[in-house]
């Protein structure tokens, strides 16, 4: 059994039951398998996988670990080559987006507007960046604790699934881990290359 498969097996045995279905889906899909392997390499070393589908309290630290650790070099956000209007629903990062674009509300694609709080858990999508021709894993974190921004509503649904498969469902109020689950807007953070393997 390859190291990769061993990691997957270890993950499947350790992970909280709430995410079992999600892991199986990831494991069965090549574009996501490498991501899981990457995360697995990091978190297995930490001794505990987060109990939630996509805990992203410190994505940058994860990126550094991933860079130093296993196969999948994750570009820092400022190394990304991208063009287009990030206040438009057509923007490449928003392929699985559902909500209101934070860039229209005083925030950016990666940071919440002033006074709102970033949810520490998110759903994910795999989007194609037309500028470099690569697929990237995008984390859609809600910003919470204020009234809904109400601007730049956007609903696209690449890979969307029902709510019993939470990591790929945008039909959930994703304000988990914040002090209030009042929805304000949504970020679109690039967390890695989807096809790195």
């Amino acid at each position, binding site marked *: 059994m390859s190291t990769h498969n061993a990691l997957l097996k270890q993950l499947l045995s350790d992970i*909280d*039951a*709430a*995410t*079992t*279905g*999600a892991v*199986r*889906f990831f494991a*069965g*899909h090549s574009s996501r398998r490498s991501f899981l392997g990457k995360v697995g390499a990091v978190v297995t070393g930490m001794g505990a996988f987060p*109990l*939630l*589908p996509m805990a992203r309290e410190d994505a940058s630290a994860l990126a550094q670990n991933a860079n130093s650790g296993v196969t999948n070099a994750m570009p820092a956000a400022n190394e990304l080559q991208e063009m287009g209007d990030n206040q438009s629903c057509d923007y490449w990062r928003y392929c699985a987006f559902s909500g209101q674009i934070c860039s229209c509300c005083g925030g950016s694609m990666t940071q919440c507007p002033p006074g709102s709080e970033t949810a520490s*858990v998110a759903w994910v999508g795999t989007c194609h960046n037309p500028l470099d021709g690569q697929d990237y894993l995008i984390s859609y974190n809600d910003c919470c*604790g*204020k*009234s809904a921004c109400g601007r730049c509503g956007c*609903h696209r*649904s*690449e*890979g*969307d*699934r*029902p*709510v*019993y*498969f*939470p990591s790929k469902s945008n*039909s*959930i*109020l994703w*304000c*988990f881990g914040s*002090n*209030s*689950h*009042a929805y304000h807007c949504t970020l679109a953070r690039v967390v890695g290359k989807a096809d790195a393997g």
Partner: protein
Amino acid sequence: MKHYLAAALFCVTQSIAAQSYDTIIGDSLPLGVPDDHWFSVRGSEIAYLIDGDEGSVQGTLTLSMFSPALEPHLAAGRIYSYGSFYTRTFYGDRTDVVLVFDLDSALPIKEIEIPPKSAGIGHSGMIGLIEDRFIGVWNITPAMSVSVVDTADDRFVGEISTPGCAGVYPVDAGFLMACGDGRVQYVRLDSVGEEVDRLRSDVFFTVSDDPVFDYAVPTPDGWMFMSLEGQVYEVAVKDGAVNVSEPWSINPPDEEGAADLNGVPIDPDDHWRISGRQAFAYNAKTNLLVTLMHEGGGQETFEDPGTQVWAFSTKTRRRAYVLELDEETKGVSVELTADADPLLIIAPAEGGELLIHDGVSSRLLRTMPEINASLVQRLE
């Protein structure tokens, strides 16, 4: 003559004076008695209670921003819901409660506190009334569980962990849930509302290939689930097992060169998909299944609004009629009342009018403007 005129004028003024004016204080009407054609439509922080025969709002319920569903219990004179409330509306301390509304006054008469985990958005499957006594509320944090409340003494009983499973669909002394591992799970409760055991069906779908909606509709024996590709499954609990029927498709592949009895070619429809927030509804008394449909896209468009309603007989498993919707407003939710003469209610996606059709004939009966709402539920 003068005397007659004076007498007539006196009579008129007296009759006008005899009419009482409205009081300066005012009062409230009682809600009235819901019948088979009443239904509810949920808007933002409000649920409209509507008489479908009149096309009129009979009353409203005030909800929280996080109250996706109602659970009527008309025999007890109650309507249940749940919600989350913050001390400062959008922030502050959070309290989640099951709300108990009085059917006569349409006012909340009780609150039962539950863990602050309830799903803030969703559909009617987020809450269920089990054996007319226990309320189950689906939680997601995103770990999944169900909070149980005993309405006999309005008490929170406990929380049941249900990893990877969604919805509360009551059957006998328990409830069904759709699960990410391709099964339906049945959790059975004891006489005080605590879990006795749980049963699981065989695997009958996969999340990657063709998952079922997390929304289901009641049948006489259990619940009907549908997959994103339009497969129909009926699920029942019998003899200690969760049984899933053999599926049938609402959209089998087109036959090449198919024509009707008159030789007119039948339009191909392979690229039509079921979708919506409440994408289907079922009336058991008439064996009528309706689905919201849109053309094109992949499975991921399963929440998109529909531009047509398709109606099927579940007896013959064939399509009975197609109802075209306004291309501008489309439809996002469908519901059928439960009686033998069902109304078909269609909620618009884009701020249009609520449509009330005859479910069997498809004929438009009436429309209701200014109901800014998206989820329709029976009131039974």
